[in-house]
């Protein structure tokens, strides 16, 4: 049945001619595959090696002789019982220099899914499931007959996560990665190293020194070094594109002591990438040098990114693909520069990728094919492969000046293996003989220094000779040098003087390396040294790096500080930064002293109060509220942040009420809801008698106020929990109240008197006629409490609902809580006269639906279905980074997923849950049931992202029970209301997403996709009437905005957007906005598809929109607000961001929810 589906896929695919119409898998002829390639202009792709020379390549690396070593596995994904592990290491050679491999050797076999390899030290290092082994041959040219276990204890929880991506660093260390499900425990001479999630390891084989170079990512299948030793990484699941790796940094999904703050990739909304290489050498044109290449293995593309400096980090911009294809088995998974200066691509060749979603033993899994493709530039000479293994030491040292990174790196490997005794004297001479005026001398010195580092010898001599020979080295050199110097055995005074000087550099990258360099010094004064960074301009990455360094050094500096021995030179800004970074409750006193001292720069004051809210006790929280209540000069956002922080502190840390509060009264009657709401909760949480009247009044007012506002007041009142509160709330639940009032009152009552709330609810859900989506909260408030579902089932037994939709909402609430509530489900079905429960689709039904998608499905109509409000697809699944984070990004789903898989996922969301989206279910000590996708766990709190895309924080000590749910956050039955045609259209649309050559192919255009729009609510209209419509551009948090998203094409459908008229007889208007993140200030362009009817503001400054609008941006997040006169425009809105040549600006579009 699956073959049938696949055959249909081919029938519709433009590559039909390539596939035998009835074949299970495509024709494996490499030439047919090659013909599907669209290659970057000026380049061509040839086949370098193909089956039977190799099968199933997973990783490849060249040795200094130019031979290509390939780790290959036919056992993947799982060894069979009784089967002997027999995977292979293969060596491919082009002995004739014909540009094609003509010789293959099995160097080793007997391995279990080798997922990484790197030749070196007389053999090859291989990832062999739980261990790294070093394999070598006693006879030159022979097969491996010696096997040495180098490290062991690596986890195997998932065979595409086990250790991989082996790389020699420029520093002669072996770098390798593990993915998110892996838990590793490795014994080394200095103790056990543990890594319980993804990350990059760094290993020195000479002394078994192992450390964690960076943490995080889901599938960090790419890691490469640029010519100055900066690390870049990609993720085969994370979707943030190219990551610039800060040493020791934590990235997406990290585990570890500092995981509460993480760094991100440079291209959010990217498809998943595998492999990474930096272009270097004479064969490639100048404008390709330093570009990075990675593989969109799902979308059958080899992608190219251009990096530009951006403060201490880079900005990465996608360029035209190196290769794109629609061949279903083309799976580029590794990419390496070769000895001839060409680019080599390993093609795993498989119609099926990974094994979480498709059965281990699915017969469509390819086990026998594999290709290596070679990309060359037309009309450009190849590089003559260097002779390295037989060269003399001086000859090899000269090769460190080669323009090809490949040659420099391999020469260094050969020199390293010749040994320190033979090489060091020559190396020192070579370094001191370098001509300081030569071009690229910094690069040459750096290669020499890295080699020196590889020998782990004292660096002192370098201080006097080569290093300081040139007066003004390139900052890139200095940055790399600081990293080498900081971990060297050089005298501390020498190291310190270099770091201190680096921190005063005008180059942010140099300062970044200096900040991170001292983190491992394990001394109190290292913190003082690092904090000098604050004397120079900071950027986001520098701020993170300093935060991490200060936290890592906490055990050394905090005791000294508390003992009064360390003062940070009395600099309040530095002290504030340090105390904020560690957020430790032992630092309340110094924080108070800082605040009261009044010497802290204005921009740090908010941060200190926030810190105080996070760590303080009752009196400190009172102080925060008093400050927030003094309205002068504070913004709504600031007040809201502080008030919310106090509420969170009371909830998560159970901080009791202070003796006296001032400011809370002002806050609870603040003009902005975002301030009032937490303030009212505080009143209830602390049971403040003197302010009870404020919430009572609001809770029971006869005036028409927004339901959520009243709900907040009622919840606050419920927190008092006494008989009087219950009575008042019960009264608001009575039938004579407005429906909305009744709803929020029942929700509030559920928290103090569940049986009474259920009584009211049973009556309410039966008589209510209008099925507001918010009703789901009412059901949830009852079902989420132990025994609630059963009691509600009894309460509605025998009743017939006025609206069947109410019963449907109830069922939705049951699904969202992921709890078995069979009695309530049955009762709701009866009460709403709903048809019997849906059954899981049979395989035959799935087959029919998948076929429908391809025969009658229409992708354009499907997109409209996808965008329907009632389906809420975008609320959870982003496209190109715009949209919710609850489920995976959909950018390339169609290129990777089979149609039957898509049908299954729509009908049975739990059948295959993407890694990183599994659901954690928690029962708290007060019997509340919560569930969501784990965002992080650190500092004693667990943060979950709920199905509503809200982050909820649960103190770990309040958790009574925790389990992994087998349910997906995606509700089952979401597509039940669709017609057959709708379903076919939706499936077809999804199946087209990301397909190369189609209408929904990934685009490199930087289009605004995530918008916010003003809904014509009464509160918003009142604000407009009080001020004017352009006040939206000056919004300090007063308006409420709803999300809106562009279509895949980038157009925002204007007809779908809410419009309003402020005064009678004026034209209808729509107000939109989006944000730009400017990391380096400068000029950039906004391109509008049409300017009719638009009034545009950047910040609160009006600008004149043109087809191409040139703008100067300040750094920081900038909001662009667009007022649209609907009488003058019907056209959709499309805005594109473009760089301006030579402008230093680094601007990206803010995505997300």
């Amino acid at each position: 049945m699956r073959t049938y589906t696949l055959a249909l896929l081919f029938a519709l695919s433009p590559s039909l001619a390539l596939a035998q119409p009835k074949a299970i898998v495509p024709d494996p002829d490499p030439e047919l595959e090659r013909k599907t390639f669209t290659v970057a202009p000026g380049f061509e792709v040839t086949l370098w090696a193909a089956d039977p020379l190799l099968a199933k390549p997973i990783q490849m690396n060249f040795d200094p002789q130019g031979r290509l070593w390939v780790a290959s596995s036919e056992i993947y994904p799982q060894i069979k019982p009784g089967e002997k592990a027999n995977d292979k290491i293969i060596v491919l050679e082009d002995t004739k220099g014909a540009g094609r491999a003509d010789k293959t050797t099995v160097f080793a076999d007997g391995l279990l899914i080798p997922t990484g390899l790197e030749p070196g030290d007389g053999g090859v290092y291989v990832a062999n499931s739980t261990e790294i082994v070093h394999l070598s041959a006693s006879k030159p040219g022979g097969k491996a007959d010696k096997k040495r276990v180098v490290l062991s204890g690596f986890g195997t929880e998932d065979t595409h996560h086990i250790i991989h991506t082996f790389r020699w660093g420029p520093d002669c260390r072996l770098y390798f990665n593990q993915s998110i499900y892996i838990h590793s425990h490795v014994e080394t001479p200095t103790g056990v190293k543990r890594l319980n999630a993804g990350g990059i390891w760094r290993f020195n084989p000479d002394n078994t020194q192992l450390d964690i170079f960076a943490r995080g990512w889901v599938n960090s299948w790419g890691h490469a070094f640029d010519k100055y030793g900066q690390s870049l990484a990609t993720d085969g699941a994370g979707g943030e594109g190219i990551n610039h790796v800060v040493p020791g940094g934590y990235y997406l999904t990290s585990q570890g002591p500092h995981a509460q703050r993480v760094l991100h990739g440079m291209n959010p909304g990217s498809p998943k990438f595998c492999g990474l290489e930096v272009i270097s050498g004479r064969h490639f044109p100048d404008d390709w040098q330093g570009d990075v290449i990675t593989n969109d293995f799902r979308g059958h593309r080899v992608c190219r990114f251009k990096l530009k400096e951006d403060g201490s980090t880079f900005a990465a911009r996608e360029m035209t693909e190196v290769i794109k294809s629609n061949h279903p088995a083309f799976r580029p998974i590794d990419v390496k520069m070769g000895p001839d200066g060409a680019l080599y691509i390993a093609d795993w060749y498989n119609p099926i990728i990974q094994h979480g979603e498709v059965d281990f033993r699915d017969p469509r899994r390819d086990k026998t094919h594999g290709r290596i493709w070679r990309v060359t530039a037309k009309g450009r000479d190849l590089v003559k492969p260097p002779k390295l293994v037989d060269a003399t030491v001086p000859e090899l040292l000269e090769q460190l000046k080669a323009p090809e990174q490949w040659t420099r790196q391999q020469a260094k490997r050969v020199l390293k293996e010749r040994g320190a005794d033979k090489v060091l004297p020559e190396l020192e001479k070579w370094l001191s003989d370098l001509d300081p005026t030569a071009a690229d001398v910094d690069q040459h010195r750096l290669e020499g220094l890295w080699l020196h580092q590889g020998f782990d010898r004292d660096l002192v001599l370098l201080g006097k000779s080569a290093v300081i020979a040139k007066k003004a080295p390139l900052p890139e050199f200095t940055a790399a040098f600081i990293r080498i110097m900081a971990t060297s055995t050089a005298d501390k005074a020498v190291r310190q003087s270099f770091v201190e000087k680096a921190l005063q550099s005008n180059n942010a990258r140099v300062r970044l390396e200096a900040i991170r360099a001292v983190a491992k010094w394990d001394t109190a004064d290292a913190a003082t040294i690092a904090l000098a960074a604050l004397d120079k301009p900071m950027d986001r990455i520098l701020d993170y790096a300093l935060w991490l360094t200060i936290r890592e050094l906490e055990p050394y500096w905090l005791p000294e500080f508390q003992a009064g021995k360390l003062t940070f030179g009395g600099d309040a800004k530095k002290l504030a930064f340090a105390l904020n970074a560690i957020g430790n409750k032992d630092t309340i006193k110094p924080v108070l002293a800082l605040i009261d001292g009044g010497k802290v720069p204005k921009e740090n004051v908010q941060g200190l109060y926030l810190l105080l809210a996070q760590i303080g006790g009752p009196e400190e929280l009172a102080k925060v509220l008093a400050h927030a209540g003094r309205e002068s000069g504070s913004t709504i956002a600031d007040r809201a942040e502080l008030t919310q922080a106090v509420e969170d502190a009371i909830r998560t840390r159970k901080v009791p009420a202070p003796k006296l509060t001032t400011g809370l009264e002002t806050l609870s009657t603040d003009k902005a809801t975002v301030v009032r709401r937490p303030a009212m909760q505080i009143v209830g949480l602390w049971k403040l008698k003197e302010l009870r009247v404020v919430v009572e009044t609001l809770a029971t007012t006869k005036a028409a106020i927004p339901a959520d506002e009243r709900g907040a007041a009622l919840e606050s009142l419920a927190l008092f929990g006494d008989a009087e509160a219950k009575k008042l709330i019960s009264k608001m639940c009575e039938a004579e109240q407005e429906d909305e009032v009744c709803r929020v009152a029942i929700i509030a009552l559920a928290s103090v008197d569940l049986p009474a709330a259920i009584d009211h609810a049973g009556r309410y859900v039966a008589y209510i006629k209008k099925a507001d989506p918010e009703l789901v909260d009412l059901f949830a408030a009852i079902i989420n409490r132990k025994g609630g579902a059963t009691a509600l089932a009894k309460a509605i037994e025998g009743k017939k609902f006025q609206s069947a939709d109410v019963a449907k909402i109830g069922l939705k609430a049951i699904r969202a809580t992921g709890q078995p509530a069979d009695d309530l489900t049955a009762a709701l079905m009866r009460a709403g006269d709903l048809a019997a429960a849906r059954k899981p689709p049979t395989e035959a039904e799935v087959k029919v639906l998948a076929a429908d998608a391809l025969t009658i499905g229409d992708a354009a109509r499907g997109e409209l279905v996808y965008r329907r409000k009632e389906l809420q697809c975008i609320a959870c699944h982003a496209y190109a980074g715009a949209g919710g984070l609850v489920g995976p990004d959909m950018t390339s789903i169609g290129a990777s997923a089979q149609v039957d898989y898509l049908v299954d996922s729509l009908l049975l969301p739990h059948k295959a849950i993407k890694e990183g989206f599994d659901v954690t279910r928690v029962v708290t000590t007060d019997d509340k049931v919560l569930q969501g996708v784990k965002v992080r766990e650190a500092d004693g709190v667990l943060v979950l992202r709920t199905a509503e895309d809200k982050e909820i924080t649960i103190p770990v000590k309040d958790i009574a029970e925790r389990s992994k749910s087998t349910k997906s956050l995606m509700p089952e039955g979401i597509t039940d209301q669709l017609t057959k045609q709708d379903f076919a259209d939706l499936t077809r649309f999804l199946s087209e997403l990301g397909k190369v050559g189609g209408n929904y192919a990934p685009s490199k255009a930087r289009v605004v996709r995530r918008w916010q729009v003003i809904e014509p609510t009464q509160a918003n209209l009142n604000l407009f009437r009080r001020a004017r419509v352009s006040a939206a551009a000056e919004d300090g948090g007063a308006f409420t905005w709803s999300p809106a998203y562009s279509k895949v094409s980038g157009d925002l459908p204007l007809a779908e957007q809410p419009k309003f008229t402020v005064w009678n007889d004026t034209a209808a208007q729509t107000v939109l906005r989006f944000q730009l993140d400017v990391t380096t200030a400068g000029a950039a362009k906004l391109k509008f598809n049409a300017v009719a009817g638009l009034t545009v503001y950047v910040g609160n400054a009006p600008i004149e929109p043109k087809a191409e609008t040139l703008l100067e941006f300040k750094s920081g997040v900038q909001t662009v607000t667009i007022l649209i006169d609907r009488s003058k425009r019907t056209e959709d809105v499309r805005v594109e961001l473009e760089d301006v040549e030579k402008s230093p600006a680094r601007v990206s579009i803010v995505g997300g929810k």
Partner: protein
Amino acid sequence: MLLSAAFALLIAAEPVKPFEFKDGDRVAWIGGTLVEREQRYGHWETALIAANPDKNITFRNLGWSGDTVHAESRGRFDFNSPEKCFKQLVDQTLALKPTVIFVSYGTNESFEGKDGLPKFEKGLEKLLDALKPTSARVVLFSPLPFVKAAGLPNPRAPNANLSLYGDAIKAVATKRGIVFANLMHNLGDTESTDNGIHLTEVGYYAFAPFFADSLGQPRRDFSSEKFELLRKAVVAKNEQFFNKWRPQNETYLTGFRKHEQGKNAKEIAEFDPFISKVEEEIAKLRKELKK
């Protein structure tokens, strides 16, 4: 040559009372890398089988790199929960219904130095209490000392700690009246280890006589062809058992994504016939040794 060098280093210790193996004994072996890697070479396991050729003794190696008495390596997705980590170790051991348990911890804990000693002792006692339901005869092994290796600092300081932890293990054994097996012998040969802390294949081979000694078992001719055949069978059995009890892809087979590909977990039980088959082979070869 290698062996004689090792013999020369053997320090005359107090005579060891032989540990008495019984026909039908099932030995569960828990510990860190030392135990885990033994399974792939099999020298020590084979030495014990060879010393008791007329008894059917089966070994199940549950070693896990980096492990401690608190079972810190075994938590997988529950690594943050000390209770769940510990429960893993206890459940894994109990599931085998062992009659003998080899407990080999202390090396990884010793990096905590003297300050960490009370936590280690408490953890060890807790573990032994939790294993009581098996009524198995328990053997507590001391750690192995670290040796000098190229590129590494002198092992004097870590060895002082290792002795400390070895003494603590011995004291617990004495208190409970259970067997203590001392492995604190320095092989001193550079080929026995290449990082100073873990034995190489040669190291396990060279250490096998001392391992037999530590349990008062007679030494056999470990270089004989018959012994080698037996050892190969032991290694083959260990490989099948390892693939069964610590299969790759646990996330899907038995973990939180089992609702997706958990159907493949049926293969786990399919390892058993293969294990039994090699075990029959081991029994045959063991009997050969007597001839």
